[in-house]
């Protein structure tokens, strides 16, 4: 393990990962009201490639190991996701005194995870050639759903009016989970050799595509930043303070689960991230009276950039420290 000062040096050297610079370019262009705007079809194309890439990569690794052995980890992650949502709710509702519905909706976002942050975490590990557990993409899927369910439960209680079947169906059949799980299954069935001919598109281009995706995320985040004025200082603080806390919890959980440094780092990155696709869509249909601008601005315009710029190097330091 490198000594803290070395780790710090590494942080400074690496924190200018070029994919993050694309995010900053998008953010700057958006804030400067540049005419730059990428059409929705490009967003769909690029995110489809990323989700399939992550899924395939995980799948071909899963093909190398017994999958049943993962069941305990998966159960642990479901509990972790739910627990993080409860914790977020408690902080928002009882400490920050935000109303119940908005607290519950935001808690669902922060207990859930962001695929884009995960992708940047993977790119980060790749550029340092640090390896990580094959099952991480599967873990991502497992962490995505429970917090959303907890968020809705916290708002509605056991209210008979909640169409659980409908809501779960929408989440599980949403674009991102279908592509991630589809990629996982294909990679798993086809195995490393079968996926080999697909590598030029799905693996070699990964970082370039991620850069383009982050450019778009920067533009989208800039558009969300307009919503700031309506936010109290409390919510802004929450969006910046929660990531390191949840990241530490994730790093701790990863170490307990026996993950490697790379896996621990990725789990921390996941827990520290906030959903901006699955959670908003579900909350919008299950808790329409929650204010979507609050949670979107927080997760996209604050937590996401925070994780990119500050969080990711920090979670690596945490993971390395815990694995000393």
């Amino acid at each position: 393990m490198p000594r803290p000062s070395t780790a710090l040096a590494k942080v400074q050297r690496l924190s200018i990962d070029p994919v993050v610079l694309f995010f900053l370019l998008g953010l700057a262009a958006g804030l400067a009201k540049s005419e730059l705007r990428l059409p929705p079809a490009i967003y769909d194309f690029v995110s489809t490639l990323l989700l399939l890439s992550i899924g395939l990569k995980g799948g071909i690794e899963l093909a190398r190991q017994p999958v049943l052995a993962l069941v305990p980890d998966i159960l642990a992650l479901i509990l972790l996701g739910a627990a993080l949502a409860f914790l977020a709710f408690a902080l928002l509702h009882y400490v920050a005194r935000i109303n119940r519905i908005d607290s519950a909706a935001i808690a669902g976002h922060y207990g859930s995870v962001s695929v884009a942050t995960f992708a940047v975490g993977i790119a980060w590990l790749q550029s340092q050639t640090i390896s990580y557990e094959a099952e991480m993409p599967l873990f991502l899927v497992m962490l995505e759903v429970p917090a959303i369910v907890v968020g809705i439960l916290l708002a509605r209680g056991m209210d008979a009016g909640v169409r659980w079947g409908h809501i779960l169906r929408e989440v599980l059949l949403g674009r991102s989970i279908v592509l991630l799980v589809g990629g996982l299954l294909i990679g798993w069935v086809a195995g490393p050799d079968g996926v080999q001919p697909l590598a030029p598109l799905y693996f070699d281009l990964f970082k370039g595509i991620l850069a383009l995706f982050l450019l778009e995320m920067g533009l989208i985040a800039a558009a969300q930043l307009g919503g700031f004025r309506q936010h109290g200082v409390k919510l802004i603080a929450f969006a910046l303070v929660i990531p390191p806390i949840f990241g530490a919890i994730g790093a701790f959980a990863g170490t307990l689960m026996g993950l490697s440094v790379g896996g621990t780092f990725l789990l921390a990155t996941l827990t520290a991230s906030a959903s901006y696709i699955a959670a908003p869509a579900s909350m919008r249909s299950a808790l329409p009276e929650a204010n979507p601008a609050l949670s979107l601005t927080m997760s996209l315009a604050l937590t996401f950039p925070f994780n990119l710029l500050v969080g990711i190097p920090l979670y690596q330091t945490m993971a390395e420290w815990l694995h000393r």
Partner: protein
Amino acid sequence: MTPSIRKLVTIVTEAQLERELTRDLESHGILGYTITDARGRGAHGQRASSWELSSNIRIELICEAAHAAELMAYLQTHYYQHYAMVLYAQDVEVLRPDKFR
């Protein structure tokens, strides 16, 4: 062939409501509608990104006036309060009135 009069109802709302709303329309007996992608601005601010969560759709449907009134009342009750939505109606001349109920 003298044209008959029907109502054209136009709904501009959040793109992510598409599936739910079309199911609703169908369960209200609306058998025909046309959807285009849109962006815009309104009480809920700018809705114009490359991103489904903040883009709009525009649904048009032609039906009988009474049916239209009922549908608009329903939409207003169920969606207006919590979603970005604009709703308006017009008379239009159609050639095959039996097609639009």
